[in-house]
């Protein structure tokens, strides 16, 4: 067992254990921190695959951006010491059955499929080639998705501001109805 395999299994164990703890933890802030561990280990996997740029994006955008956003909204909407009630037993059993069935089907399919790798040499993925591909119109260019994602990001930014901005007075009747 070489160092690569040891690192992979370390990351895999961290990811599996903390994913399960993310979806089962009864304190919401701890669930967010476990999600952070999962995302950081995923970026470790990207480093193992030699995609340094994407690992950096994963660290800054997922682990740095989204988790901080989630933690902020947790602090705005719930008490830190509040514990969830455990989900109903029936719900847990049926959800676990559905997930396990899906996982078993997918894993058996993966194990029975013969993957054919190409013989071509690996290209060096550096910042220069990434930037050239993102803005090129050739067959390996991604300028259209790049533009679409730019418009999507602007639309999402404006939408987030418009939705979350303080509107008129909040109707109190909805609360008294409950």
């Amino acid at each position: 067992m070489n160092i690569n395999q040891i690192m992979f299994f370390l990351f895999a164990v961290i990811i599996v254990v903390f994913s399960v703890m993310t979806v089962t933890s009864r304190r919401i802030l701890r669930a967010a921190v476990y999600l952070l561990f999962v995302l950081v280990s995923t970026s470790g996997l990207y480093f193992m695959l030699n995609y340094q740029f994407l690992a950096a994006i994963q660290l800054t955008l997922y682990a740095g951006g989204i988790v901080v956003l989630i933690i902020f909204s947790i602090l705005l909407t719930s008490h830190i010491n509040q514990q969830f009630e455990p989900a109903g037993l029936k719900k847990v059993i049926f959800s676990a059955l559905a997930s396990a069935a899906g996982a078993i089907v997918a894993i058996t399919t993966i194990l029975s499929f013969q993957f054919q790798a190409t013989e071509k040499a690996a290209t060096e993925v550096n910042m220069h080639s990434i930037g050239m591909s993102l803005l090129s119109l050739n067959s390996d260019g991604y300028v259209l998705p790049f533009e679409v994602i730019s418009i999507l990001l602007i639309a999402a930014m404006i939408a987030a501001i418009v939705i979350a901005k303080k509107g008129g007075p909040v109707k109190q009747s909805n609360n008294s109805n409950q």
Partner: protein
Amino acid sequence: MNAGIPLQFFLILATIMFFVGVYGFLTRRNLITILMSVELILNSVNINFMAFNRFLFPHKMEGMFFSIFIIAVAASEAAVAIAIIINIYRRFTTINVEDVNEMKY
């Protein structure tokens, strides 16, 4: 590089992560924890793309660009979702999905 780690290990890891996310999506009742489960699902898809790109088509960069676009979509989705969650909280003073059912006929 990648010595001794077959492609299937990455795929199985991503599968487990995906279905753990699905389990969380089905059992959780707080909107923010549901959002965290969706992030788990998107992240596992990214691992799949990267592993396929590195192991099967190392001379191309399609998987990496798809991952970049998925990350961008996930980021904007999280921003809009959290804006909606904060608005719901301001209106209903709860983010439990079972209490937020005003639009249900």
